[in-house]
């Protein structure tokens, strides 16, 4: 409560700079390690659930729906379908990306879950749901989805809506 006393003449402290740096060590685990090693070798691996037979990518070593271990590796194609996407005109970090860019949910052929990745080599206005796209590998690969530099149009006819409507 202000009583008009001496305290009112004090300039309020409104901020100070406190940089925070977080360095993580992440143990990827067995299933993710196989997936990440695969990316280093230019292969995209999923895992099939023995109960529902869905193929999860990235694999987690267990089916999130059935709660059972998944041990069967499945190599997926490099081509998939854009199920939905957005065009981003705003960066959270000025040096993150050239604007605008399109980021899409992509269901790879043979997979039952989507990956979120960059679409390039096509004007953003031409990106569309159902578009068939192909992975373009980065010049230098490592244990990361960054080994896929981006996806580009695969030059195939668009997939019908019914073929991907369960992956929105």
């Amino acid at each position, binding site marked *: 409560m202000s009583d008009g006393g001496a305290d009112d003449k004090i300039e309020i402290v409104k901020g100070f700079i406190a940089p925070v740096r977080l360095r993580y060590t992440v143990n990827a685990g067995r299933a993710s390690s196989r997936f990440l090693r695969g990316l280093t070798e230019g292969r995209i691996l999923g895992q099939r659930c023995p109960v529902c037979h869905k193929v999860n990518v990235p694999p987690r070593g267990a089916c999130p729906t059935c709660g059972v271990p998944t041990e069967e590796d499945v190599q997926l194609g490099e081509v998939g379908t854009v199920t939905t996407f957005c065009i*981003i005109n705003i960066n*959270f970090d000025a040096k993150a990306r050239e604007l605008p860019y399109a980021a899409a949910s992509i269901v790879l052929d043979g997979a039952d*879950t989507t990956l979120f990745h960059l679409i390039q080599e096509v004007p953003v206005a031409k990106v569309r749901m159902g578009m068939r796209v192909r992975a373009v590998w980065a010049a230098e690969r490592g244990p990361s989805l960054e080994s896929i530099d981006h996806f580009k149009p695969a030059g195939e006819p668009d997939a019908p809506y019914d073929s991907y409507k369960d992956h929105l």
Partner: protein
Amino acid sequence: MNRCAVVGIGQTRHAQKRTDVSIAGLCREAALRALEDAELTFRDIDAVVLGKAPDMFEGIMMPELYLADALGAVGKPMIRVHTAGSVGGSTALVAAHLVQAGVRKRVLAVAFEKQSESDAMWALSPKLPFQPPLMAGAGGYFAPIIRAYMKRSGAPDEVGMLVAVKDRLNALKNPYAHLQMPDITLDTVRASPMLWDPIRYLETCPSSDGACAVVLTDEDGGRRAARKPAWLWGAAMRSEPTMFSGRNLVDPRAGRDCAADLYAQAGITNPRQEIDVAELYVPFSWFEPMWLENLGFAEQNQGWRLTADGVTALDGDLPINPSGGVMSSNPIGASGLLRFAEAALQVRGLAGAHQVDGAKVAMGHAYGGGSQYFAMWIVGSEPR
């Protein structure tokens, strides 16, 4: 299960920057108003439940420890709740559970966010291990989901703009609301920058500083309340994993299951007919029609028609967000509790200029994470 009543409600003036108060001062502003409404003091409170979004936002680890003193919680049970954006709703429900279980008689629930002291866009765009940096805040996550809804439902582009205008005009009747945009029209929304196509600037929520508090009591406290209480009819929470095959982000299973549980508790079989007003968590305008479907107010792909036909307007048959909603004030951690509190104000008849005439049954709703956490309650003007 014991009855639970909402006997006190307080909220701050929400603004882009509340430089006049610290975080503790912000929380106290809401808490003292709730106690004043209940004609109680901190001394009367048995336990305090605090909610806010991730600590990384303001960079204060475990702020509940720092805030215990300001919230009169010293020497009392103090519980921190964290369920991402739905946390305000979950905070109310944890407090309600303490009363319903008969463990506490009077519980204070407080939720806050001081976005001017945080960087939510940064905090929501983490560098994930083994992933390319593609995320651009919450908008980048939700824009593809909205596009999927637009395609699936065939809703005209204008629906998102209608919600953006409606909620800002409602906010003009709410003296606590952050955005006050008397001149907003469909044209100004349409002309605003496309941030995360298909989401325009004016189709998103603001960043706000604000807090909200509610006092919950047992039945005895409700009967002796200083002002008309709101009675809890149902309270439900659900969650679902981030990724699984067939996950429907437009119409999440956890939201449907949560609503089904809620309606069963409240004895509601036809929400469209039996609920008079709802405060839904709509941070991007298109989520109004999406949640209308998820919560059973409309059939699949038909929710947008309620918006387009004016049903969800303040003078419509099912007003949604008469307070102006998240689209007009978004202190993230508090946003869910504001939905719950505004629903309670409606059935108490204390909502002021944005009161819905004769509201007897109201719903408060919150969601968070990647549409993973859901919290809901139904309150009535009479005990059930």
